[in-house]
């Protein structure tokens, strides 16, 4: 059984207005916003609550399917950085790849890989709330400040 | 056949008008059990018990 992506209820609620006015349609949209910020910050949130957050899909849905490889590539790269594994450390590289990737699974990730992504997303939400505390109302306004934040981190 | 003492005691316990029908069913059941002729499969027992339970309504005054 593939592990599902997870995002806290608080995080979802933060984007509620955007869902209500149908600027966002997929649960994964909110997850992706948070994930990218977490990856940009290069930190994870390891609290137990992350593992128990409400489940989502176990795969990259819809338009994210085409971007899966790049999201995974960024994720691997950030994880190597987070763990301090140098490019020359072939063994370390091998290990991370072996631990995180499972080509057989829908998401191409192992359960550990999915869990790690969830932890990045959880951290990403914490950082987002700190920097853009107000719940976004219109996506067009949000996008600008979001991109700025990612580039700042 | 069961001894009259058993028959009388059942009739006595189930003497009130709202319990008589139930008492009659129980008496027949007791007689069948005593004669070794009662069905002993779960379904038949449930059917018989259905009749017993369905034969009377609870009233606040029907206790004892």
């Amino acid at each position, binding site marked *: 059984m593939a592990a599902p992506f997870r995002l806290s209820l608080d995080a979802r609620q933060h984007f509620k207005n955007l869902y209500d006015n149908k600027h966002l349609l997929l649960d994964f949209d909110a997850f992706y916003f948070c994930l990218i910020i977490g990856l940009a910050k290069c930190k994870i949130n390891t609290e137990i609550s992350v593992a128990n957050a409400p489940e989502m899909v176990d795969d990259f849905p819809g338009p994210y399917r085409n971007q899966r490889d790049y999201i995974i590539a*960024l994720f691997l790269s950030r994880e190597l950085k987070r763990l301090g594994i140098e490019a020359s450390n072939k063994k370390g590289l091998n290990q991370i790849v072996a631990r995180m990737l499972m080509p057989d699974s829908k998401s191409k990730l192992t359960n550990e890989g999915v869990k790690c992504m969830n932890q990045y997303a959880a951290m990403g939400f914490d950082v987002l709330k700190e920097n853009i505390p107000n719940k976004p109302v219109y996506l067009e306004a949000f996008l600008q400040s979001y991109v700025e934040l990612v580039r700042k981190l | 056949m069961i001894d009259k003492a*058993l028959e009388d005691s059942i009739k006595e316990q*189930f003497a009130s008008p709202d319990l008589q029908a139930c008492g009659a069913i129980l008496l027949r059941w007791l007689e069948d059990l005593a004669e070794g002729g009662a069905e002993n499969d779960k379904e038949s027992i449930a059917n018989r018990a259905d009749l017993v339970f369905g034969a009377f309504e609870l009233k606040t005054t029907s206790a004892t």
Partner: protein
Amino acid sequence: MSVNVKIVKITSKNLRCPDYVIDFAGSDGNPCPVVLLQMPNGTGKTTTLELLRAAFAGETILTDPYKDYVDKDCIEGQFQVDFTNNSLPYTITMKFNSDSNGLEYNTTRPNIGISKGHFVPSELKPFFRPDFVKLFVFDGELAVQLMDRKRTNANTAIESLFQLNEFNHLIQNIEAYYEQKTVNSSSNTDKGVNRWKNKRDKLKARQSKVLDMYSKDKDLLESIKLHLEHLKEEYADRLKMNSELKDKMNSALKQKTIAKEKVALYRKEVFDIIKAPYTIHEKFAQEILELKSNFDQAKLPESAAREFFVELATNEDRCICGTELTSALRQAIHDRSINYLGSEDMAYINTLKTSVSENVSPIMGAHSKHLDEQLALLNSAILEEQQAENEISQVDIEGRLDDPDLGKVSEAIKKDELQMREIEARLEKYERNDDNGSEDELFSISVLKKELEWARFKVAEITKTIELKEKRDLLCQKLRAARDIARRKLALQICEEANERISVLMPFNDIRLDKIDQSLHLRNKAGGSEGETLSVAYAFLSTLFNRAEVSLPFIVDSPANAIDLAVRTQVGGFVPKLAQQVIAFTISSERENFISGLKKTAKEKSREVKFITLFKNGPDELVKLAEGQVDFVKSRNGFMVTGESFFNQFQQNSEAE
């Protein structure tokens, strides 16, 4: 009558009692109502009685090792009882083996034939039990036991004989029915049902309120929409008066529409772009390219895949370097193989590398530049929309200056629009399909409906369960009461009737039964003489057996031996009335008065009496006398004579010579 047992024949061969075939048939071929079996002490009377009990109730009742029942000159011996129940024939055979100390039962049943083992028809099971069988294959010592409250024979006798235990059977069935019907119910208490009733009532009230609010809000929305339409018409009409303003307004509205569409377009465009992470930040693009490069440099995926190492560890004797593979080495290779990529991992990494090289440009800022361009377009569209809004407001202000009432209309429009948005938000709450509020705070109509249905169901379910429980309790209570009352009544009636019989048996004795519960209680007396005890026991058993709807034979050992001569006549008169078939083992010394009493009653009741004498050996004159009888049988080790005359002449009280 479901139980009507008569003994037809008993057979003994090669056992420690003499060999015999005792046929209890009377002159009409049916089992004779009264049989007197005269067996001197030492002839195996006790053994015969013991074997009879064991034939009915099973081997647990035997007191000696099985081999001891076999004649010491033989290896195998057999005891057989032929009896009928409601005229259906049964045979129980017990085979003893002294070598193996073994005992084997065989049972012959109607329509089944012979089977190995001891099988008792179900209607006879309550009676063919070790403790009950002693009541009808009567042991004189039992008379004392009946008086002993530590032995529960008296009550058990009543319970079994009158089948009071069927009440328990009935109660069990009712309990089982209740359990089965309520196995899925979560509660059977008033507290449980009240909880659900409260919830149901709250939900009902809330549903009512919400539906009311929903209906009112829908009506209100309609009326506001209508009102807004009129206001807008009025606004437009007023503006029309000033054609310049009118044109400006139309233009501004058009601008606003175009700008809104642009905003939507660029918003979607930007959102789609940023789904590819390398577009958001130049750093991300660079890192992804770097990762690919690192894979290339590390020569990942490697040509040696995980499978290679697993195969090596499992199937090869030597490593590729030539080293012999011990089990420790194999395990180490196996464990470490996990650090290497499998062939599927390799395939995916190749795909990943290809995707990256095909789509991620190495040109610095290529992607983020594109994103920035789109963001700029989006911002500009937002500004356009804002400008159009401003233009509309400006026209509105000018219009108000021109026509003050226009301002009022404009304010009214704004107010209505706000109110409309509020109502629409509320309606959305009523119409959605998920809602996590408590009973008092639910808005979703569909969720309320579901919750209310569930609460109603639970109330009904628990109410039904409570009802079932109360019915069960009532039924069981009444059945227990009926059982106890029946038991007491029976005990009382039997006590009274037994006392009447005792007064006939012993008219000059004031011994009487006081009550019957676990044991027989004598009035004003702790116990009686052996004779008194026996008489009381006979009176009790006689009452018992005559009253019950079951008919069992009564087999008794020396019924009058311990009893005074004066009482013997009475006891003798009693015996034929004890049961429909009575078999009494007697010795010659108890004949006096006993036989006369017995014959008198037998004649009065038109009951035939059969006289059988059985003995091992004796003085020659006795044997000659026996041989001269019409009905004389000689076996390997005994003699049997049927007939009253020989019975009365027979004298042999001491141990067989």
